[in-house]
């Protein structure tokens, strides 16, 4: 910060003061004047000290940030030079990180620190990785901004719950069916939004997410409305159930002592397999004509048309395949929780999944993993903060956007490469 010259100081101060003032204006009504239930009725009890704390924190934070930015600017010429080899070595590092990461995920349950809590968090993180990968097809690859992705998650969850409830079908039959239902609803959503782009697409998909939630909430006779559905059957391991009983259970078959961890570990491997399947299929699709068409569509729809790509089919397949993975993840969610209600499928879920995709670096598969670990794992670490968790979540997002404005991994790997030497 010693490089700061005196000319830069006034604008920095001004900017920080303005930010402080905006905080003041917002904080006074929202934080400064809380209502309390007193015996004489509703009363206002001002909390000026909190307001002052907030304003000074924002002012100082902004000031520090400004200084940081300024420092960045003065040293930017050297960072650009450093950038390319740095990126290359990062690329090489990633080649090792992927197999190590998968290996780690595979042996995680055998680790000494793999307590029930750790496994629960891991399952949660991987669920979001899978959802992120699913949405990545729609948003990251095809470039269709979908704010209602949670609808497919909900459809998958309710498909399983309802099929299991009404017909008593096993998880393994319902899982593909849930994928099919989600795919169909993806196409249903796709049709009306085919001609929309950008903001308008976002608004309609947002509406779609809400419509599904509202239907689930109000169709009481069928879905149980706000009460949700409970007693959703747990999945079995090739017909062996995870129960404390002496016959036909997982533990008795393998001659193990019953432990509730068995089911957790089984669920962990289940979601890990589903997520890896999602990733595998996406990576394959990227190299096929349909995947190339998605990416081309994201870059330039008009150029796509003039190369003979049918944008209708391309968009519908993106919606359908993205939705399928959402649906599969939804079924998993239902069987893991054993209870679902519309409350689990609010807009905030869509927003979190979208944040994972965007912060990961649109279209990057590893970016999604990193963002899920940071955002979901990170907020889980802050569980003690209770109601401030969302604040931590927001701060993490802002942090990523400040340091990595194009996402954690903005690099796009080409789908075809020919060595430069050879070939005339």
């Amino acid at each position, binding site marked *: 910060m010693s490089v700061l010259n005196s000319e830069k100081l006034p604008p920095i101060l001004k900017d920080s003061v303005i930010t402080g003032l905006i905080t003041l204006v917002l904080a006074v009504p929202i934080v400064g004047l809380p209502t309390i239930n007193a015996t004489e009725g509703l009363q206002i009890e001002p909390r000026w000290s909190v307001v002052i704390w907030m304003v000074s924190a924002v002012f100082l934070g902004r000031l520090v940030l400004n200084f940081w930015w300024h420092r960045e600017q003065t040293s930017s010429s050297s960072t650009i030079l450093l950038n390319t080899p740095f990126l290359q070595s990062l690329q090489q590092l990633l080649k090792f990180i992927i197999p190590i990461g998968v290996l780690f995920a595979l042996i995680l349950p055998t680790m000494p620190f793999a307590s029930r809590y750790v496994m629960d968090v891991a399952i949660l993180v991987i669920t979001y990785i899978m959802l992120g990968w699913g949405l990545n097809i729609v948003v990251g690859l095809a470039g269709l901004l979908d704010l209602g992705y949670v609808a497919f998650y909900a459809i998958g969850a309710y498909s399983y719950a309802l099929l299991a409830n009404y017909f008593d079908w096993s998880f393994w039959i319902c899982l593909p069916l849930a994928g099919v239902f989600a795919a169909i609803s993806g196409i249903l959503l796709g049709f009306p939004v085919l001609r929309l782009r950008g903001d308008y697409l976002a608004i309609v998909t947002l509406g779609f997410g809400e419509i599904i939630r509202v239907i689930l909430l109000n169709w009481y006779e069928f879905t149980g409305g706000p009460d949700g559905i409970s007693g959703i059957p747990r999945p079995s391991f090739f017909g062996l159930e995870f129960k404390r009983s002496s016959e036909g259970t997982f533990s008795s078959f393998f001659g193990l002592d019953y432990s509730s961890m068995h089911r957790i570990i089984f669920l962990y491997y289940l979601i890990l397999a589903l997520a890896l399947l999602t990733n595998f299929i996406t990576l394959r699709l990227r190299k096929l*004509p349909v995947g*190339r*068409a998605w*990416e*081309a569509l994201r*870059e*330039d729809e*008009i*150029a*796509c*048309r*003039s*190369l*003979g*790509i*049918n*944008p209708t089919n391309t968009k519908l397949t993106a919606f359908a395949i993205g939705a399928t993975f959402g649906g599969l993840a939804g079924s998993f969610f239902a069987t893991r929780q054993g209870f679902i209600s519309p409350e689990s499928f609010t807009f905030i879920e869509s927003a979190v999944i979208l944040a994972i995709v965007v912060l990961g670096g649109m279209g990057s598969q590893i970016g999604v993993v990193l963002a899920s670990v940071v955002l979901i794992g990170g907020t889980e670490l802050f569980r003690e903060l209770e109601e401030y968790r969302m604040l931590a979540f927001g701060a993490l997002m802002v942090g990523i956007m400040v340091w990595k404005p194009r996402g954690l991994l903005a690099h*796009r790997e*080409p*789908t*075809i*490469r*020919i060595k*430069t030497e050879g*070939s*005339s």
Partner: protein
Amino acid sequence: MAEMLSITGLETFYGKIQALRGVDLHINKGEIVTLIGANGAGKSTLLMSICGRVQARSGAIVLEGLDITKAPTHEIIQMGVSQSPEGRRIFPRMTVLENLQLGATTNQMAYFEEDVAKVFDLFPRLNERKNQRGGTLSGGEQQMLAIGRALMSRPKLLLMDEPSLGIAPILVRQIFQAIGRISKEEHVTIFLVEQNAFHALKLADRGYVMVNGAVSMTGTGAELLARPEVRAAYLEGGAH
């Protein structure tokens, strides 16, 4: 000679603005036909109407005996029309090879290796830069890529909108040479829209001059080059 494309009485509107006022024009198989005209004459609009990117209000566009006036773009392209559009429209985040792959969409990349080799033979510069991202190519290289990408579908009819726009004279010559080779070696019928009237008319079998949304003059390339009105309006300032 068999007709590749024939256009009769074509009228295209943008809202209330009429851009094409009854265009009549035909292109025979194997020809290079060029269309010249001032800015805003409606040249790009005509190409876009052929591809179905804008819908004509009246008139007919017939491709090898089939009426394509109302067909959607992707179907027209699948029938063997290809274009290097105005503004090139390269996919910027994709590499040269990926752009070429997308050009081969209509034939499912059946002849990919062979066709890529042809494109690289036509434009060796692209070979040197095949793993580079489209957006980082120079303007001229992007133009080569746009033409190469259009060739990947093995078109019967290639529509080109100002391939020499914003390109240095030396490269312009290369690009026109390449267009000549495409016509001769690949037997592609070419419809070339150009501002660079001198080069275009020299290369073309026939030419049309468009003024204000309608064809005002037609003839062989050499005839048009010799016409004083053409020289005055499009060749002043010594394009040679």
